[in-house]
């Protein structure tokens, strides 16, 4: 292993919590009289490194800060403390098809979404057939996407994101959608992806999937890093923790 693809260095992210947040001038004036909003640390002092060409998993219970950390990696949120270093071009897939415009056709949306994810037009054109083929939406590609089934929507969005070919792909629970055949197809695509020296960071609640796909895993608990290491050991610790919680 040479230099790491991602370095997460003592990252913390804080949210302000307001009792009511309806964002009007009136409520701001009212708020002024109350004490300042509560602070909530969704991610607390997390550090780890992700080796190049590996698949890295993030696990933890609901609300443990996985999505918040991923959003920091994707530059959507900015950490209040610490820093994140990305060695290479990153793209994120937090919710599939989030950049789609319902009235535009699938083909037009590929260009729109591709450029949101940072791909130049000529590169999208070069990969267009591949993207359409992988998505499997067939002749619906020239229909407005609002006529798509939710599965088709997801498949097209995933297909665009994976064909953007970033150096680092950040994925939040998108493999949970799509039918069995598509899941299998996308898993193969991920493998192809990491084999070419690219890095995947993903969040999932399926421990079976983590064991199968990930090389290394970080376990977050209430925003803090509980353990980081090889997938097998960390998932085993996490499983034991979950079992203990049940009892």
């Amino acid at each position, binding site marked *: 292993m040479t230099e790491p693809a991602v370095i997460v260095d003592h990252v913390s992210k804080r949210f302000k919590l307001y009792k009511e947040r309806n964002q*009007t001038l009136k409520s701001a004036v009212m708020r002024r009289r109350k004490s300042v909003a509560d602070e909530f640390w969704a991610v607390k002092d997390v550090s780890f490194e992700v080796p190049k060409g590996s698949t890295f998993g993030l696990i933890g219970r609901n609300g443990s800060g996985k999505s918040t950390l991923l959003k920091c990696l*994707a530059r*959507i949120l900015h950490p209040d403390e610490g820093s994140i270093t990305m060695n290479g071009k990153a793209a994120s897939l937090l919710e599939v098809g*989030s950049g789609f415009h319902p009235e*535009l056709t699938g083909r037009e949306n590929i*260009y729109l979404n591709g*450029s*949101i994810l*940072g791909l130049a037009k000529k590169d999208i054109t070069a990969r267009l057939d591949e993207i359409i083929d992988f998505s499997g939406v067939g002749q619906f590609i020239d229909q407005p996407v609002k006529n798509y089934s939710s599965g088709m929507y997801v498949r097209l969005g995933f297909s665009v994101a994976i064909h953007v070919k970033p150096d680092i792909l950040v994925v939040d629970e998108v493999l949970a959608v799509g039918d069995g055949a598509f899941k299998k197809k996308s898993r193969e695509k991920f493998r192809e992806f990491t084999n070419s020296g690219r890095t995947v960071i993903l969040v999932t609640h399926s421990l079976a999937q983590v064991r199968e796909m990930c090389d290394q895993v970080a376990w977050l608990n209430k925003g803090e890093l509980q353990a980081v290491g090889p997938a097998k050991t960390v998932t085993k610790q996490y499983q034991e923790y979950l079992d203990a919680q049940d009892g």
Partner: protein
Amino acid sequence: MSYVKELAATRELLANLTIREVKGQYRRTFLGQLWSLINPLATMLVYTLVFLFLLRFEPPPGDPSGVEGYPLWLMCAMLPWTFFTRVVNGGLTSVVSNANLIKKVYFPRMHLPLAVMASTAVTWSLELSVLAIVLMLFGAMPIPFIPVIIVFMALLALFAVGLAMMLAILNVHFRDTQHFTGIVLQMWMFLTPIIYPLEFVERRAEQVGQWVLDLYRLNPMERFVAVFRNLLYDNRLPAWDDSIYCLAAALIVFLLGYLTFSRNEKRLAELL
């Protein structure tokens, strides 16, 4: 400066967002892009009726163009004004209405108000071309002035988007902004000599005092409207002081909008 570089590097995204705005706007309408012409025509009809038949006001013929008629005189100022309000209203809501995108993907957020500006400029160019053709049918000759018209279109666009960017940030904190702006823009229009001539105000100022006119003419939109009327209706170059006032207003407001927006854009995802 690095933010400018990032905007430049992702300019294809701006192009695509603009296409999204232009295409999405009139999808599934029978008349499509024609709607962008029907709307100004309808306003023109209303004001023409009021001013021509009720108030019996006739604007002076264009000097030196010689064109006459309230509808033409009105539209030469009304089109720049509607462009301004569309950019301000659209740009101000562009951040909030794209909350889903902002929370899910990273891209320089300034492309959202900029795309509203660009897409509105596309429809505006169409409207102005139609107006120019009509003006020519009535004897005016705006063609030699096209380069100057384009310069002032760009200045007005900068002025409008600068204001829109400041308001867009404010709107994230207080959603009152968009409602409030609607009212302010309405009042602003009546404080600008669009449907009536500046002479009305000048005459009043003679009675009340010069300060009324001075105060009235602080409004940058008054200058923009005068410039576009000079270029389109009169077919002459605008006055130097008006031109410089427009340039200064556009640059200052755009710079303020740019700074406000780029300073706040990092925290937009969590505020929405």
